[in-house]
Structures are given as structure tokens and as C-alpha cells.
């Protein structure tokens, strides 16, 4: 499943970039996500909870950050294993930043999400909805955080 979101933030590109390469702040902007441990410079342990009405799924796993400072492109690879046989999730997200003006920055988020297990099987497209919602919330939070 591929997702693309593009949005403009009223903040300088440097600030936006600083945000996107800070694992703690990125996690805070993803509802349900948390960082629990720093393994090395680029790798963290964490968890992700997704809840949709009566259904909830929790994933534990690792997050790796790969930064391309020159092009201001940050890649995140998050791999999680669901609890209670819920299956696995594997997300590859790339965020890139382009300055449109001194206080205007365009952020592009491209993600590829692979989810296996019962939620993907029975979800009637639910995971697509959930992912879309998650990225929408992410962009909203980023916009809000940086605009203030």
C-alpha cells in the first residue's frame, strides 16, 4: 500500500527539517506511536498502537532512521510484530523538505506500508483507511507544531 501526502508549513525549512529528524518528536506526532529505547545512533525500539472502534492492535518493533542531509530527505523504516498473532507491519516512510520561501516549506511524505495478518485480511480496506487517517493526523500535527 502506497501513501503520499504533500503539505505546506508556515515555518522555515531548517525548523521543519529539525523536526523531521528528531525521532521523539516524530513519534509524538504519530498517534499511538512511542519510542521506548535508543539502540544506536539511528535505531530505536518502540511500539505502535492502532485502535479502530472495538478493534485494537499493538505492534512492537524497531525504527531505523536514515538521513540524507544534502537533499533534506529523511527515511524511516519501522518494523513491528503484532501481539497475539495479529501479524506484522513494515513501513518505509520518506519525508522530504523543500523551502518555498523563508517561512514557507513544502513537506512531502511518501510511505509504503505492508501489513500482514488478520487486520489486513478482514479489514475491508480498513488498513488503507487507518493509514490514510494516520498520515493525515501526522501532517496536521506537524503543521500545528511548527506553525505555533
Amino acid at each position: 500500500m502506497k501513501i503520499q501526502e504533500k503539505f505546506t508549513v508556515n515555518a522555515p525549512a531548517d525548523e521543519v527539517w529539525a523536526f523531521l529528524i528528531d525521532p521523539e518528536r516524530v513519534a509524538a506526532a504519530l498517534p499511538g506511536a512511542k519510542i521506548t529505547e535508543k539502540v544506536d545512533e539511528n535505531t530505536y525500539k518502540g511500539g505502535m498502537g492502532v485502535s479502530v472502534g472495538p478493534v485494537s492492535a499493538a505492534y512492537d518493533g524497531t525504527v531505523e532512521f536514515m538521513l540524507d542531509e544534502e537533499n533534506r530527505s529523511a527515511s524511516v523504516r519501522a518494523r513491528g510484530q503484532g501481539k497475539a498473532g495479529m501479524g506484522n507491519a513494515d513501513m518505509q516512510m520518506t519525508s522530504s523538505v523543500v523551502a518555498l520561501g523563508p517561512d514557507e516549506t513544502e513537506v512531502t511524505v511518501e510511505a509504503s506500508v505492508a501489513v500482514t495478518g488478520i487486520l489486513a485480511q478482514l479489514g475491508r480496506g480498513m488498513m488503507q483507511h487507518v493509514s490514510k487517517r494516520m498520515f493525515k493526523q501526522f501532517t496536521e500535527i506537524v503543521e500545528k507544531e511548527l506553525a505555533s
Partner: protein
Amino acid sequence: MAPRTSAKICGMGHSMKRKEDPRFLQGKGNYIDDFTRPGMLWLDIVRSPIAYGKIVNIDTSKALEIDGVLAVLTGKDLEAYNLHWMPTLMSDTQMVLPTDTVMYQAQEVAGVIATSRYAAADGVAAVEVEYEAMTPVMDPFKALEDDAPVLRTDKEGQEDNLIWHWEAGDKEATDKIFDEADVVVREKMHVPRIHVASIETCGCLADFNPVEGHLTVYMTTQAPHAIRTVLALVAGHVGLSEEKIRVVSPDIGGGFGGKVPVYPGYVIAIAASVVLGKPVKWIEDRMENLQADSFARDYHMDAEVAADASGKIRALRIKTLADHGYADAQAAPSKFPAGLFSICTGSYDMENAYAEVDAVYTNKPPGGVAYRCSFRVTEAVHCLERIVDTLAHKVGKDPAQLREENFIPKEAFPYHSPLGWEYDSGDYQAAMDKAKEMIGYDDLRREQAEKRERGELMGIGVCSFTEVLGAGPSKDFDILGIKMFDSAEVRVHPTGKAIARFGTKSQGQGHETTYAQIIAEELGLPAAHVQVEEGDTDTAPYGLGTYASRSTPTAGAAGVMAARQIREKAAKIAAHLLEVGEEDLEWEPGTFSVKGAPDKSVSIQDCAFAAYTNLPEGMEPGMEATNYYDPPNLTFPFGTYICVVDIDRGTGEVSVRRFVAVDDCGNIINPMIVQGQIHGGLTQGLGPALYEEMTYDEDGNNLAGSFMDYLVPTAVETPAWETGHTVTPSPHHPLGAKGVGESATVGAPPAIANAVVDALAHLGVTHMEIPIRPDRVWGVLNARGVAK
């Protein structure tokens, strides 16, 4: 054909009401989940949520803390007994439980043994398995690319994902015809992966007696004897040799091919029973059944027909890619890795043909079993009957007329097909004529023309199939080396009542009735007095089981031969009782009388009594016979189906307005049962044509793992089938009968697909992939600007 026997005897041709019905109608059937044993434990299975990956760790500690959970078996546990792998019926190997790698979603990973269903299920939820996921190979075409990972690293010498290459026919001669032909048409088509989805899932009750070292397995199997042999091959080294194993197949809630294989669950249940010394029951739930049990079909075919300008077919060429999942677990005869796919020249006379199939491994469940069809005949018929329509449209002929002009003429039988079959008998034109008359073909074509003028979409689909059933002659057919004969043992008691046991196993086909009628036909005993038994390996003679519509052609014939042996003995006894020579006797079903003196007679019952009380000098007492029947040939039933569909231009929905099926299965034993088989088969043809498909996403998820998404037709979608028949007896069966159980499943999908394509043909459409979903149809309508 008028029955030869009275209604009291109820032999062939009588629509006898089924002997098995009262118990089913009163809730007294004995299906696998109805069995219990004192102290019985329950097995439930932990399954992989991912399609491909390494098992990093299995933590069973939380499961074992649950009240009632006694044990968790993993691949490592079975490895200690060398029971973690087993052979498939196609001499490939498959895992019982993995020790390091999972190969498809829903693969068995561990077995939880508990004192109740509920505790076992809780145990399954509590087992924690850590996986290192890998990218699965879901596309069979990609599986053959150079950079595809090799999936079966366990197999020595396996350097790619090709399982086998098979071909039939004369490639060179066929290519030559194609090079010089006036017309060549080509279609690429996929007959997708589907699932039998019998309403009863699979299961077993394994009951190991540690004192005697004896194992009884009650299980939902269509082939109990062959399964006993396989179990002995799998577990002989741990003391379960064949005489220590009894397999009992009770009432089966639908099989259709899905209950032929040995599934890992059976072996895990047996292992658990042996290890714990207690009876262990395993019953699949529906999601397990749909996701892990053997699939059917999944053939990607690239077909071409060469013809002359008038549409006379000259040659056929098919290249096929067969997706077998991670193991080749078909239940096909060993000489036929692509089953009986080479029946693909069907009902048409042509100069030559060539077919090839490449089988590949992917990260899907293993299988390739039939879904109510005789080893790939459905794929073959679908391919041919579709492309024949493409040819008809290309040369501008009515599809029925084009078929008629290409039929093998009835004088040509027995007919030798270019791909090596000897068709026993046929009169294809007669079936076509009857079907056209029943449906009012010419009127429909007129109606269609009028509707087309008004922009309405109506289509008429024709299919004239030839089936190939009754595997089979032992010179060609075996499974794991065991010849595909079948057997009957008939024993007439002193009071003239009989028991007859067979090596097959009914799953709803009504063997208890049909076989009794066969014995009645031959011995003149009332069918009501013939008790039929199947499915218990301790009592029934060895046979290969019921699938591929083989019961009547093989075990039914064995019943005839055994009954005839008994009748021969009875004749000797009758001569003795009537004090005449055997040559002076006349036989009318049930009675021997003296030629010219019809009042001097004895009944078969008299003979039976005498067999135990008043024998001719030197004759062995008793009245029984056993026959292992090795058929001289397969049987080749056929038929013409015509279907009318209407298409909603707004939504793309297809509705089957009428469907006429004319079948010819030779002489008919029970017309009511034959019609019932055809009704059921048609509905299992409707399903794959319009609704059913086992699909996967690129991440390996099974997207049709429950009845929410695996769409079995209900009474509302199913049309009121109209059936008729012609009778062309088989010269190769002692009753002139042919198999019938699967003809309709084979013939219906192309008839429906042809009707849909026919409705769209004027828009330039030559093919629609099945299942023909509304969104697919709408996509075509929209692309051509006719969607409303």
C-alpha cells in the same frame, strides 16, 4: 430407457429415494465432530500470520499457564521423531510443522493440546511466535525470474522455483499447422485459485491405544485406504505400521476433492495422541479451512487455435503456468503431473495439438487438488471452450454452428485424440440439438438482436464439453505407485439379504443407494435389502477412494463383477435345486426359471438360502464375492450447456436468466441422483464463473479467508437449472455407465463466460477473466463508452 427390474427390486433406471436420507434428515448423521471418546483432548493450531519468514522464537510459556492446556507441540518436537515433514501425494514434500521457516500465511506453526475446545483456543492465542518476515513470492511469473529467491532451499538440487515441466503432443507438427493456417486466434486466460469450501470443514479424532500400539483415526477423508498407507509411510518408523492403523471415514459433509490430501493437522493430532496416549480431536474452523487447505486450479494459460477460413479447427497450442504454492500437493496420478489436462482438444476433431505446463513454487498454500473435477479437466475445458468462441467471433459464425461443424462425428468413436486419449463413445450433435431445442436457441438469437438495437446487453453462451472420468486403468494410473483400481465385496446372507462393501467413500453422492441399485440390477435382490458400507479400512476392501467421478466407473463396476460372480454361483445352485442343467436356465432379475417351463423357478433368495443349507456336491458354502476392478479405459461423458445472461449497463452485474444443461453420462443408474449431481455441479460452476476466487495481496495476505469474502452462491444468486439428457452407453463399462459427478462443474463456467462475452462481442470484447465480477464488467463497459 425403461428399467429392466421391477419397482420392488429397484435396479438401474429407478429414481429410488436415498437410503441414507432418513438419518441425515433426523439429525442422526455421524460427522467427524459428532464423535467423542472418554478422556478426549482437543488440538487447536497456531498459524502463521505472515506468508514467508524465519521463525526466530516460539514462546509457549503463557499458553502452558492456561488452565486446561496440557502441551504445545512444535516442529522441533516432531523433528525428534522425524515427523516434521511428510510426503505429498505427488511425491513432493511438505512440512507438518516448521522448524525454521514458514512458507505461507496460515501455515501450521504449533499445536496446542488441551482438555477443551475453549482452552485449546485460548492456548493458541497465548503462544507467542517471533518471526523475521521476508518478502513473499506471490506472482508465479515473477517466481520464474532470475532474481527470484529460491523458495524450496530444503530440496537438494533445487536451484529455481520450477517444479516440473510437462508436455503432450507433437510440437513440430502443430507448429507447422499454425504456420500455414488461414486463421489463428489467441487468448490468455487465468482459471484462478478456488476452494471447494465444503460446508463441513476437515477434522479428525486420533485414538491411539498405547497398550496395543494400535491407532484408530476417524477422519474426513475421501480415500481412507490410501490415507492409511500414507500414514504408515509417514509414521511406520515410529511403530505405526499399516496393520496397526485403522482409518474410519464417517459421514462426510461434502468433499469435492478437498478431503483427499493428508493435512498437517491430521498428523499433529495423531502425533499428539501417540505422545499423550489419549484420544485427540482436531476440527478446523472455516478460516483455517479456506486459508490452509488445498486449493484448486490456478492455471495461467496462453492458448491458440489454428483454423481454416471457414472455421474448421486444425490445431491447438497451449502454454500454461501452474501456481502450486509452496509444495506440489496435488492428488493426481503420478504419470500425469498436469492431471488430465491433455483432454484439452475436447469435443472437436483436429489434426494436431500441443500442450505444455510449467509448475512453479510460490508462497501460497500447497495443493492443486480438484474442485469437483477430474484432475485439471476443468482448466482444459475452460480454455478450449472459451477460445472456440473467440474463433467463432473471428470467422463470423454462430458459436453453436462452429461447434457443430467441428464435432467429432458419432461414427468416429472410439476416437483417438491427438493428445493420446481413446474416447469411448459420443454423440455430440444429439446433445447440442436437445439443448438448443430446450432453450429455444433461434428465438433467443432473435431476441438478442432486437435488444442489441435498443442498447440492451444480453448474451447466449454455449459449451460442448467432453469429460474424462474414472481413473483409472492401472497401466496408466497410480497414486504414489498404488494402482487406481477399485473394489467391491458382496456377501449374500442366508435369508437373501446382502451387505456390499466398497473401496470408495461417499461424500453426499448417494453411494448407499446407487451401489445397492447396481447389486439389485445384477442379482435381482431388492435394493432395499442391500446394505452398503464404505470408509472403514478394517472392513472394506482396498480402494483408492471417491474423487474424479470415479466411483461408478471403478467401484461400481467392481460391484457389478462381484455380483455377476455370485450370480454364476447362484445359477449352479438353481440348476441343482431345479434338477436341470445350468444351460437350461433363464435369468430374469431375481429369478432363475427353466427354459420353456416358466413356472419351474427359484428365486435368488432361494439360491442364497441353499448356499448355506443345500449345496450341490463339492461346492464351497456361502455366497460372496470380491472384485478388484481395473477398468479397461476411462469414460468420456459429454454434454452441451447453453446459458442466457443479462447485463446491467449501470453496475456491470451479470444475471443468469436461464441455463440449460444436457448431459450424457451413458446408462443412468438413478436418474434422481444423477440430476442432483448435475444441479450441484452447475452451482459449483456458477461460483467460480461469477463469484469465487482465492486472492492474495502482494504482502501475502489471503483476502478470501472467510465466507465474508469467499463468495459461495446462495439460493438467490443460483438460477433454476433446467436439465436434460441423452444416453450414449460406454462400451468400456459393464453397465454402459459413465461418471457424472463433475461434468457440470466443468461445463458451466465456460458456458457462463461465453454468454457474457457474447453479450459484449459487438463491442470488440473477446475474453473476460473469471470470476466475472461486476466491477470487471463495468470496467469493460466504461472503457468502451457504454456504461450508463
